[in-house]
């Protein structure tokens, strides 16, 4: 058994972080949300309706970047819009999101010409372009160095708040969870249950060195540390 008795709600426009020990089923959980996996029991509701990908627009950003290497940056972003049927305002939307992630100059580039962090931003732009009802992010910055991560974290918060996007963000990095989350959900080891739901009261922009931040980070660390 991987996940058991996981019940919680996400509010509209909320940034919810999920943390838990390695291998506790965080990714499985996101996969259930999108119906990539079927859950054995329980219900997943979006706006009080069972999740249905024909009705609901759920965007998913994976750990390994899911860029299409044979398409330009511009076409990668447009692809997201086209499969969702937003063809009419596509030009303007592509322009807008590329500008938000700072990649306007690279619209005509192919993925092979870009750095890892740029690729991840293209994927993020592609996801946001479709105005998802729910954005799932599975450790999108897992492999990036700290200063890049800080920049991209600030960027994603800015975009989410601008579009009012509801986000479920999975991370191993507890500092990142405390930095990003309006709320933090802490899972236990397998079979995973919810250990604690923490409301993060810290005002934004957050200072990772402030005593309040450090205190919250240490609290989350203590909940998770298994060694």
């Amino acid at each position, binding site marked *: 058994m991987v996940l058991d008795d996981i019940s919680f709600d996400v509010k509209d426009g909320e940034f919810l972080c999920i943390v838990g020990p390695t291998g506790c089923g965080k990714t499985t959980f996101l996969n259930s949300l999108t119906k990539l996996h079927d859950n054995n029991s329980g219900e997943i509701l979006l706006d009080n309706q069972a999740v249905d990908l024909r009705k609901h627009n759920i965007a998913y950003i994976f750990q390994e970047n899911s860029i299409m290497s044979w398409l330009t940056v511009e076409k990668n972003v447009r692809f997201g819009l086209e499969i969702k049927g937003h063809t009419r305002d596509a030009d303007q939307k592509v322009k807008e999101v590329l500008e938000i992630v700072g990649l306007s100059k690279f619209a005509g580039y192919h993925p092979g010409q870009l750095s890892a*962090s740029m690729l991840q931003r293209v994927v993020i732009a592609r996801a946001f372009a479709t105005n998802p009802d729910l954005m799932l992010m599975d450790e999108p910055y897992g492999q990036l*160095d*700290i200063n890049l991560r800080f920049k991209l974290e600030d960027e994603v918060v800015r975009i989410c708040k601008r579009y009012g996007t509801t986000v479920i963000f999975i991370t*191993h990095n507890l500092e990142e969870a405390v930095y990003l989350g309006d709320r933090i959900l802490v899972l236990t080891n397998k079979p995973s249950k919810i250990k604690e739901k923490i409301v993060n009261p810290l005002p934004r922009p957050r200072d990772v060195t402030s005593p309040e931040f450090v205190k919250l980070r240490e609290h989350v660390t203590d909940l998770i*540390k298994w060694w």
Partner: protein
Amino acid sequence: MESTVARCEKLKKEFPASGGRPPLVVFEDISFEVRRGEFLVLLGPGQCGKTTLLNIIVGHDSPTSGIAYENEKPVTGTNPSRGMVYQDTRLFPWLTVQKNVEYGPAARGEDRETYRKRTQEYIDLVGLTGFEKHYPVKLSGGMKQRVGIARAYCNQPNIILMDEPFGALDAQTRYMMQEELGKLWQAKHNTILFVTNNIEEALFLADRIIVFSKCPSHIKAEYTIDLPRPRKLTSPDFLDLRREITGQIDVDL
């Protein structure tokens, strides 16, 4: 006076032009020394040539100009006196944990009883007691890397080079391995030259940090870290230093 275990003198590496691309200088004018018993970290952004530099010091690769020395002798090829721990572990999948760890001394025909004892000591030290007969495929990423570290130690080298050994681990396993490596180093005080692009990791482990710029790389800054050990990732001194060094690292957005 501290003695020097290894030294680089004006190292430069240039990859020749190919496929219509101009030649690429990866780094130049790299000079530094590694002192006996210290934990020295080379910190730099991706693609700044850190791995190439380690390969030159260990003897897998040669510089375009400049010389790398170990014990004041120029490095001309690999030697058991320089051990390496790789990010992708490079264990032999057909050998057990024990056989992997003792591969070096066994291949050199050393006295079996002596190296067996040592093998067990390092397997115990890295926390793999009970896994001696397991094959790498049965181990988690963190455990594989422990085997790689024990293997390097078991050769009893003068210097151990570590090339982002924890880069492929998830964040929590990585913290655990950093703590364990810190303990191992405090117990044995081997000379370690450790490469990473992770500032937190560098600060947690290093006596000294040398910061590389982005490509074409040169040495940008050097820090002596005298925070007491074991270090705490959230202590104010640690966070202050992290902020200071973060400002020195080139960002390649």
